[in-house]
Each structure stands twice: as structure tokens, then as C-alpha cells.
């Protein structure tokens, strides 16, 4: 899933300067699951905005609306009846959600309430870690199901580097060296032979090098 994290209140309040009617828009998919922008977080943020206004002696009208997925036209359409009454839409969806709303409602000022961080998993309840960079050229078949592109601090394809000490990355003791994990896993699988063939330099053209990417399935296009 896409993992996001709410921006600081200071940053959000600075964005909203001058807005007296704000719609906080949540998304019922990834950001609900990663607890950054579902209905509950919408309620919390809306409450905080009202309290901040009260503290400053301002009046503010804060609306709350959560749609199934902010990255779908049909779902975003459901905001249509209410959106016109607001000075700004504070989207708690990921970057795709913010842009979908902005694109759908040309006249609306749409602001991001969260920072979209990565594609990842909850390592445990309340902690999410990055697992995939979306590089466009998956090599997990050769690395024991552990991605060095996302999980090695340097995205090395022929690791580890000299900064791997005791299985930890020199960048932080909280990061386990991805290449250590790869080695251990391949050893357990009896496939250390996979490491004998070096990786060629990565073809980044499948990533951002070619500009914004697009996936097309003609068979299902109308």
C-alpha cells in the first residue's frame, strides 16, 4: 500500500492562511489503512483546525468528507455537491488523490495534508517500512524476494558496500542491510549461486528517465 504521514499542523495552517471555509477530504483506501487520512484522521484534523481557529479568535467552517478512493474520478465526483462552498480542499489522500481532486474540480484550491512517503507494509502495528520504489523493472527473482533498490540505502545492485557492519547499514542502526538479508535468504534457499552473476548497471529508463510513466492495456480500453 501507499504509506503517507500527516504534515505538521504549522505547515497545514500556513497553507490555509486566509481560508475561512475548509473541506477536509479523506480517502478510504491506502491512507485509511496506514492511518494517515481515513475518516478518523479527517475528524481529528478537522477538530484541530477548529480548535486552532478558536485559539486565534478566528472563525472557520470545516467540513469533513471521506470518499472510497480519491484516485478515481467516479468516487471523487461525490465531492461535487459540497465542494463549491469551500475556499480550499485539504486532501488527506496521497499525491494521486490530491491531483485527481484538483484535476476534477478545476476551480477548487486543493492542498495536501499529508506527505506521501512510499510503497510499504506495516512492520508491526503503528510502524510502516518501505518495500518498493516502483522502479519499473523488478529483479526480486534474483534477490531472494528482497529488493535492494528500495531497501539498500544506496540502491546497490551488487552489494553490500563497506558500510554494512554486523548486518546493519551505516546510514542508521534502524536499517538492516538489504544485502545481508539477501545473502542470508539465498543461503537458506541454497541459491547463493545467484550472487555469482553480477548485475548489469540498472536500466533507469524504465523508471523516471523516460518522464512520467504510463501503463496501457489496449484490450480493456473502450
Amino acid at each position, binding site marked *: 500500500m501507499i504509506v503517507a504521514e500527516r504534515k505538521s499542523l504549522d505547515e497545514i495552517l500556513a497553507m490555509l492562511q486566509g481560508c475561512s471555509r475548509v473541506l477536509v477530504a479523506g480517502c478510504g483506501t491506502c491512507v485509511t*489503512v496506514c*492511518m494517515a487520512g481515513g475518516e478518523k484522521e479527517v475528524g481529528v484534523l478537522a*477538530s*484541530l483546525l477548529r480548535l486552532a481557529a478558536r485559539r486565534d479568535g478566528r472563525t472557520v467552517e470545516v467540513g469533513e468528507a471521506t470518499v472510497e478512493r480519491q484516485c478515481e474520478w467516479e468516487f471523487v465526483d461525490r465531492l461535487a455537491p459540497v465542494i463549491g462552498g469551500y475556499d480550499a480542499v485539504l486532501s488527506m489522500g496521497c499525491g494521486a488523490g490530491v491531483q485527481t481532486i484538483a484535476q476534477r474540480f478545476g476551480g477548487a484550491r486543493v492542498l495536501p495534508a499529508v506527505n506521501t512517503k512510499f510503497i510499504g507494509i506495516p512492520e508491526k502495528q503503528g510502524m510502516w517500512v518501505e518495500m518498493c520504489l516502483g522502479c519499473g523493472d523488478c529483479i526480486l527473482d534474483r534477490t531472494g524476494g528482497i529488493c535492494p533498490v528500495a531497501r539498500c540505502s544506496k540502491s546497490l545492485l551488487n552489494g553490500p558496500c563497506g558500510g554494512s557492519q554486523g548486518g546493519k547499514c551505516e546510514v542508521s542502526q534502524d536499517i538492516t542491510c538489504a544485502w545481508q538479508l539477501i545473502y542470508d535468504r539465498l543461503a537458506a534457499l541454497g541459491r547463493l549461486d545467484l550472487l555469482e552473476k553480477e548485475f548489469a548497471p540498472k536500466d533507469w529508463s524504465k523508471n523516471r528517465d523516460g518522464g512520467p510513466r504510463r501503463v496501457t492495456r489496449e484490450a480493456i480500453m473502450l
Partner: protein
Amino acid sequence: MQSSRVVVVGAGVAGMSTARSLAAAGARVTLIEARERVGGMAADYACKGTDRCNKCNVCLVHDLVRDVTSRPAIEVMTGCRLDGAQALPAGGYRLRVGGREADCSAVVLATGFEPFDASGRPELGYGVHPAVITALDLERALRDGGALEEKLGRPVASVAFVQCVGSRDLRCGRGYCSRVCCMYSLRMARAVRHRNPSAEVTVFYMDFQGAGKDPGDLRRKAEAEDGVRFIRARPSEVAPVGDDGRAMVWFEDPDAGACRLAAFDLVVLAVGIAPDRDARALADMFGLGVDEFGFFAPADRADAAVTRAPGVFIAGACGGPRDIAESVADGERAALAVLREQAARRARERAALSLSAGTWPGRRVLPGKPETMEVSSTVLVLGGGVAGMEAARMLSDLGCRAVIVEEGPYLGGQAGGASSLLARMDEDASVDVLVSSRLARLGGQVGSFEATCEGPGGLVSEVSAGAVIVATGCRRELPEATRELASRDDVVGLSALEEMGLPWAGGEENDGDCAGGGGRAVIWVGVRPDTARAVFHQALCAALSALAAGWEVYVLAPEVAVPEPGDERLYLEARGAGAVFVKYREEPQVEAGAALRVIVMDPSLGGGAGDDVPGALAIDADVLVVSEEAYPQSGTSHLATVLQVNAGPAGFFQDDNVNFLPVLTNRRGIFAVGGCRGAAALSDAIFDAHVAAYLAARLVGTGRLHVDWATARVDPKKCALCLTCIRTCPHRAIDVDGEARAAKVSRAACWGCGTCASECPGKAICLESCTDDEILAQVTPAVTAFCCDHSALIAARTAMASGPSGVAAAGLNVIPVPCSGKVDVIHLLKAFEQGAAAVMVAGCFDEGCHFLSGNRRAHLRVGEVASLLRTVGIEPERVRFYHIGPDMSAAFLKAAEETMQVARELGAVTGRRAG
């Protein structure tokens, strides 16, 4: 026609528990109480919670009071005495109660105890020196959580507890241990320190009698965190001193080996448990036996609730010393005994044992008709030792089918089991046995568990069961220090003693150099405090049999644990016969050459300052008997994962939480009995098994379960399947519903805390009886206190009823919640939005939450709201969390005052304040 009503005499803990249990099983009950209120002695006790729950169990009393006074099946008569009883020809009794006559089918006596009258030990100065009080006086002073000095009218900078006042004392005819005093003193010592952090607390004691899941932990904390000093001495006199009114305690200092005087502001006499003064008259009324001390005696030690009078049962401390948790469990036992006797009377209608479809007491009850579910009345019993077999036997008696899953090739376990019990397992058509099998998977919930068992040769059996009883026992091994001696012929484990043949039985087996015909045995009982009481009886029996064979006996133990009935007598007998008991502080050393030599330091032999010869004792032993320590079975953590139940102290099953005693786990319908939940004597394990079988039968035995309590519900349309609720639920009551593609709460398994509803990021869960809308409708601009039903709400109501306190006048808005875990971040923020200037959340003490962890979550959320408020420039101290026990009305007032003071000082959250 005979009345089916059961009369319970005495509305203390045991009586209330009996009544609640009988009512839950479908009986009609009259509960009569001589006082004007229900609750018994324990209703005067204080919650000893400090920074956390100290497991005093006093909160259970409040739950019981609520349950017995709110159930229509229980008629409560206070201010009434039982004046007479006449046995009816068809069974049952005609009772005279407060000038009225009533027929009943059975009588349960739960008349409790009296505290020992401390003036019976005049040398201790009770009633003479104002500085000397009893533990009961201190209980009352600690009640309501207020300042101790005010309550007692004196300083409490130094406090001494004197143990064994009226216990283990032949001079006043009390040759027994009162079983509860060591633990209550320990808890009170912690509570005193908590209220007065500079107080110095000393405990004068003989032997530490641990009870509960982890008494050693409590004692370590008292010593390490609170600086409580334990001095092994029995003070001979308490005298007043000087003008400061302090009391002088004379005692023999074990370190100095000399008599010393120490002055204390307060001397607390830990009075023991004595029989009720009316016990003898009641015994005569029904023709019951009493023991030598005056407690009601059961007809058979194996079934402590059954007396020799038909239709008359006993529960609680009227049958001998019990603590609160034991009295609650005793009530279940008595209820079971009543129901079994009634079933036996109607022997031909086996199924007619009058269990009604189960409900579960102690939760928020929903008005209206309960939802009835079809459930399986089969109970899966894991472990085929004595506890497992006893559970199966009882289940069969109660009309359930039992399936025993035993890992080994035979039933019997460590204790073997009586042949009659083994034969019963063989013959009983309601008991199925899978040997050489283990539970591989458990799906489903209470009422409809689906168990997958793997048997020999990969044979897989699927068992549908309504409930599960875990009776997998424990592993007994010599303690670490002696493990390498295990192969020696002259070293033997205590529990293996009889099996191996007593070394002192018969001269020819005895090849040691024995002086005067007998040898010399050392019996070393060095186990943890929670396991000591389970093995000490065996140690004393071993000592006596060796003494009888003409052997010299040394018993080495850090504490002599004699809380079990009759053990004090055995201890005195062994001492009288010449056994030497050494209460050591440092582990004995064993020199194991060709012969054995045990070296132990005996503090009573001196070794203090000025003593040239330390108190070392070198014992050349012919035999060393070592008590085995109990450890969890090796597969316990794996089984815990399969069952999704929690492990507690030392890795045994069951959380260390008073609400779960004796046999509950964090999942409804899964019970832990005997050694798997901590070391247990065989009799305790059997007791556990019976209680669990009874609870399981009450829950699912009729094939129907009435869910009348409030539960959480998931709106599948809003559920994002984020799994948060499933991970959060302390009771593992939520699963993924594949069809609906949403989380689904099992109503039967849900305890109704609402923690999941507050944690859900999609707001897809609501708790019946306490929905978000219902909570928000109660939010006003007033200072608000969210209060847990089980603790702070009771304290709040007492505080508000106690006259013109500041709280009610200032309009504190109290919002009840079933658990503080139901209080959500959003509720707190909404209160501020509504204009509240300060908000508090008050719940149970850590480790004492009725729902396991709701209060910890609430505490975390309060912390989160504080930091959220800070981010918008609002003072974080406006939101506060408090632990409040149910009796702590003064503590509640203080917390409320503090919160309202914050509100007054900071004013409303409105407009930017100057500066």
C-alpha cells in the same frame, strides 16, 4: 412441590459469587445478609493500586455488588439473619429468616470470618497506644484514596507491619496460617509508600506466604522500588515512647542476634482470619462439622464445598482462610456443588441439570431480548493428565461431550491418575480421547471453534467445539543449581520421591554411613514464591516420614510456606520431632564428592558484627531431596500462538490480571487450568478443572448461548480491512469475514470494551450501548471526566453522593464508558471543541483493566491528544489521565479538582491570550 430456590447466607465475596454463579446457571437465589448492605468485610477494603494494579482484588467486590443487585434472578435481603432451619422430608429446608418462613432446595453458607481481635495479644498494645492499629483500620484509612495522615490523625513517616497477629500462634489457639496477611501487608506497604513517598516501611514477619500469579515480583518491587524492609522477627512487645506518641517495637534483630528497639509513627498489626462468632450456632443448626479452630469442615477435603449435611454447602472463609480471588472461585465451586446435588436428586433426568443457556456476567447488559446462538456443546480438553481428565469427567456430568487431546501415548500425565478416573475415561460415551495427538490449528470463536488435531502417522481429525480447556500441565525440573547432581543416586527430586521409593524406608536400601540406625536427609525447597505453597506440603510429609524412620532431617528453604490447611500443624510436628529448619538467605552450596556435603548459612546462628564464626552449617547428607521448580511446558508459547491466548509471568498461560482468576484467559471460551497457568498442587489443579468445566458447561452446555451484553459491530461497507481491530482486540474476538470482505466481530466472543471502535481508522465500528453519537451527545462545554464503569465511575458516584463536594457544584460532566479504552482521540478533541477547558480520562490501574489493556490505550491516546493540542498552541495539560480505584472517591475528587483548577487557570480555549 419442592422449592427450587437456593438460599445463600452471607453477602460477602463468596456469597455474592455463589449467588451470581447460580443465577447465571439459571437458578433462583435468595441472598441474605445480616448487615444492612451487601459486600461483606471486603466492601470496607481499599484498592491498593499505586502506579499499577497490585492485585489486591478489591475491585472484584464492586463488580460482584453490581451483579448481585442488578440481576432479577437474585433476591437480596439485607438486615436479615437466619434464625432457624428445619429439614424437609422431600429434601431441602424450611428456613426462618427475619420472622418469615421460606422453603429452599439448598443452603449455601458463606458467612465469612472475623478478623482476629488484636486485644487478644495485649503485649502489642492495641487499643492502648494510639500508634497501634490493625490492618483493617489501615484498610479503612486507605479507602477513598485520600491523605493518610488526615484519616489516621497522625504522621506516617515510619510504619511497621507486624505479621502473624492471631495466626501461627498456639498461645492464642491459632495453630494455622491465615494465608492472606503477607500479601495484604505487602500491598498496603506499597500503597502507604505511594501516598507518602518518604515513608519508611518495615515488615516484621516469620515467613513470606506468597499468593497470586507472581508474588515474588510484588515483593521485589516493594523492596527495590519502595525500600520496604523485611525483618524476620516476631516482635515481643510494643510500648509507647516519649511525647511524640511514637510506638517502640521490641524485636530480636536477626542480623545482630540481639534484642533491639525501634520507634515507629504507626504500627500495623496484620491480624489473621478467625471463624465467625455465629459459626458454631449455624453448625449446630444444620449438624455440620467444624474443624479444631472453628471453621466449617467439608465432608471430604477433596470437595471443599460439600458438608456432611445434605443440601448444605459452604463457600469462602467460613471454611478456612481465603483471599478475595479464592473466595470468588469458591463461589463458583459452591454453585457447581449445589447444581450437581440437584442433578443427582433427579438422577434419571440426566440432562435436566438445571443449567440454562449461558450468559456472561459483569458486562454492560443490553435491554431487550438477548440474541440466542446455536453453539456446540462439545468441549475440547488439551492435556490428558489428572486435571484434563477431571475436567472431562465433570463436563460429562454436566451434559457436555469432551474430547481430550493428549500428546503422549497414554492418559495420566505426571500424577498418573486414579484407576477409577482412567476407567471412567475409557467407558464414558461422552468422553473421546485422541492420544499421541496435538492441536495444530484453532479457528472460529467461542461456541463454534474448529480445531484441527494431528495424530499419529499424520492422521488429522477435525473437532468442532464450543469451548476449550487447556490442561497441559507444567514441566518439573530440578533448579538450575542442582541440575548437574540429578544423576547421583543420593540426590532425588521431591516429587519423584515416592515413585523412587523412600530412601529411608527399610534399612537395606540405605547404604550411607548412618549414625544410630538412621541416615541424614537434607530437604531443600528453594522454589519461587508462587510455587512454594504447592510443594511445601510434600516437603513436610517427606520430612515427617524420614523422621519416623529414625533419620535426622534438615529442611532448607528461604521461607517456610504453610498457608495450606493443616501444613502449619505438620511443620510444628516436624520441628517437635527434631527436624532442623534453616531459613537461608543465600543459596546453599553442595559439595558433591564421594559423599554429599551441603553448606548453608543460617542467619539465626549469628554471623553478624562481632561474631567470629559465621553462621555456616555443613551437613554431611546421606540423601539430598530437592524440590523441583515448575516451568511452562516446552510447547507453551507455540500453543499460545495457536490458541491466540496470552502468556503471563514466567511464561505460563494466563495474564497476571485479577479479573481472570481463577481460570479465564483473554479469550472467552478458552480456559487455563492447573499447572499450565502456574505451579499448582494436585488438589488446586483439580479444583481449577472443575471450575473451568462448570464455566464451559454454563457457557455452551445447553447448545445455546444468550448474548445479552453489548458488543462491537463492524459496518462492512465502511471497513477497509486494515486489520487494525483484529490486531487491537485484546480478546481476539474479530476475524476477517471472507464473504463480506470486512472484519467481523463475534458477538459471543466480544467482551464489549470498545477498544476496537476507538482504534478503527475508518470509523467503521461502533459499540452498542456506547456509540460515538451517544458519547458526543453527552459532551458539553463543562469540564469533562470520561470514567470507566468498573472503577472511576463508581468512585465518582460516591464522591458526588457524599454531599456538597466541589465537583457536583462546579458541574463536572461525568461521561461513563465501559472501559477507558473506549475513549477516542476524537472524543477528547470534540470536548474541547464544545468548549471544555479541561478534560480528564480516569480508568483502572495498569494490569488491572477488566479488558486487559484498554486503560493503557486510553493513557496513550491522552498523551497523543496532549501533543496534538500543543501543535495548535493549546496547553497540553488541559487533558489528563488518572488511575482511580472504585473506592477512591477522595482520589477522584482530587483529580477532578486538579482538572478544574487547570480549567480555571487557563480559562476557555478562546481568543489569543495576552503574552
